[in-house]
């Protein structure tokens, strides 16, 4: 097991390197000259060639590509992602807090998604084909066809405007979490609950359930066995939910003005603040790979069959 974890972690290193290179090279594919962006944002009216050359030198653009890449990687390892073109502040001082806010939103949402989808998945599997199952599946089908920003707008209109119960935006108190978390949960729970439901259903038809019944075990205990086996499938999927949600709260953050990564990234894209985009992509890609690795390891650790296959 230990050697598997080491191997798996080592395997993700080349992937991180490839991704850092792609991210770095990406920015250079842009048709725009970064120096021009910087000068524009500083409000300099007359952009001379001399000024451009100066700015390029300041940004380190006159060095060869590979040198710049290596310098960048080394400073990234120290959480130094350069300075924002627009505000001039260090990228990490903007990205760090935003990352933290998005992590908070993601963790609360994941927690509520896990709870809701397990509860619904178990209930629907237990009553498969009955009206509970049918109506839950019908509603979830409808909700997955709904744009989440529209859902968010409807919820804001009803709970914040009409009933005046919850804040429309920002991140002041626990109340601010309710609507964004609700929107994220509704958009994702439909997918995850279906995974749990079908895992439960296929486990229910297994022989071990029949044998447990034939041995006179109470239904409560049998359900625990079924759930245990179904969750084995689900846990690694849930584990991947965290980075996926982390990377896709963009729309929800924007509509609720949540001061997180999504809001920051869209703002940076609109103002072409490349260092921030670069750092944003790199940080999330690394988190993504990390979780991918962890979820594989958890999967192996939980499944005795895979564990022996090592």
């Amino acid at each position: 097991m230990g050697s598997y974890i080491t191997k798996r972690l080592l395997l993700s290193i080349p992937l991180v390197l490839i991704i850092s290179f792609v991210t770095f090279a990406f920015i250079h594919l842009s048709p725009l000259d970064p120096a021009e962006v910087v000068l524009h944002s500083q409000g300099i009216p007359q952009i001379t060639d001399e000024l451009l050359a100066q700015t390029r030198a300041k940004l380190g653009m006159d060095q060869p590509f590979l040198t710049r890449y290596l310098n960048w990687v080394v400073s990234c390892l120290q959480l130094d992602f350069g300075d924002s073109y627009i505000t001039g502040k260090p990228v990490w001082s903007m990205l760090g807090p935003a990352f933290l806010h998005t992590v908070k939103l993601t963790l609360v949402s994941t927690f509520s998604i896990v709870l809701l989808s397990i509860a619904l998945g178990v209930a629907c599997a237990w009553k498969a084909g009955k009206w509970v199952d049918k109506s839950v599946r019908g509603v979830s089908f409808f909700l997955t066809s709904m744009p989440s920003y529209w859902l968010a707008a409807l919820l804001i209109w009803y709970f914040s405007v009409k009933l005046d119960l919850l804040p429309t935006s920002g991140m002041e108190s626990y109340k601010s979490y309710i609507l964004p978390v609700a929107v994220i949960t509704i958009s994702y729970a439909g997918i995850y609950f279906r995974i749990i439901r079908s895992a439960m259903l296929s486990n229910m038809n297994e022989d071990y359930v029949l044998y447990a019944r034939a041995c006179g075990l109470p239904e409560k205990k049998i359900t625990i066995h079924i759930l245990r086996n179904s969750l084995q499938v689900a846990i690694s999927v849930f584990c991947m939910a965290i980075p996926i949600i982390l990377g896709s709260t963009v729309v929800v953050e924007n509509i609720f003005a949540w001061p997180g990564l999504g809001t920051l990234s869209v703002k940076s894209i609109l103002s072409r603040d490349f260092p921030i985009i670069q750092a944003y992509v790199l940080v999330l890609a690394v988190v993504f790979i990390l979780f991918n690795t962890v979820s594989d390891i958890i999967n192996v650790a939980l499944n005795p069959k895979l564990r022996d296959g090592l």
Partner: protein
Amino acid sequence: MKRLQNVWKDKVAVLSLSIITVTTVAGIFAPFVAPNDPEEVHMELRFASASWEYLLGNDHLGRCVLSRLIYGIRPSMLWVFVALLLSVSIGSIVGFLAGYFRGKTDAFLMRVCDVILSFPGYVMTLAIIGILGVGFESLIIAFVLMKWAWFARIIRSSVMQYAESDYVKFAKAIGASNMAIMIRHIVPVALPDIAVISSSSFGSMILQISGFSFLGLGIQAPEAEWGMMLNEARDVMFSRPEFMLAPGLTIVIVVSAINYLSDALQVALDPKLMTSKHKQQGLEAASAVKLEGKGVA
């Protein structure tokens, strides 16, 4: 095509198909169908409610909401379909090459796919838009670039399964050329699989692309697009919430119809998927991969 007959018996599927057909036709012939010019500003008609001339009323610039919805079909649905078609085509070519020739070609192509799939899809789409600049073309390019790898993966496994079938082995034995075998024997049987997986991504792609437009990262004013219309409606959400309704409902109806039809198609073309446990687990794995693509849109 006998298998498709079952779809006809399902009334909701027929309804879904008609919704999609009508929408598509209306989108293609938008200039003839739309009652007004979607970009014509009438400041005197700002926020006017429904009238005979403007069936769904007028927006914050007095433009005809219905006409904008109809013109919006083009970017929101037809262009998304083009993007889907493009990524499925690239995915099919790669998938066919990898699945049929195997060996080094396969190993190389699949490593490329692995790298692309290990990027968080949503984040990369944002990054590509960031680099290429905000606009609808960038958005579509970003989608094609990020999606093909996923299709390639699935099409590869489906092709591999058919490439090992006896009739292909027989065709190889009697010396048919690779090209002929692919076109005559593999493409026809792999097509239903391709149809099922691409139709199942269509709905979520519409939602995602309209989501990006909603953020202002896609199509730019004054052109009409559903996500964009919702973005405009958001500004007056507190005073005129009813403007959220028309574009929102349009998206929900169209996407529901597409999703329903895609499910029906899957049942009709591949009944095994519904019964065989083994396949179902495969499906589960596939949908776990798909989660990445779904995302909040």
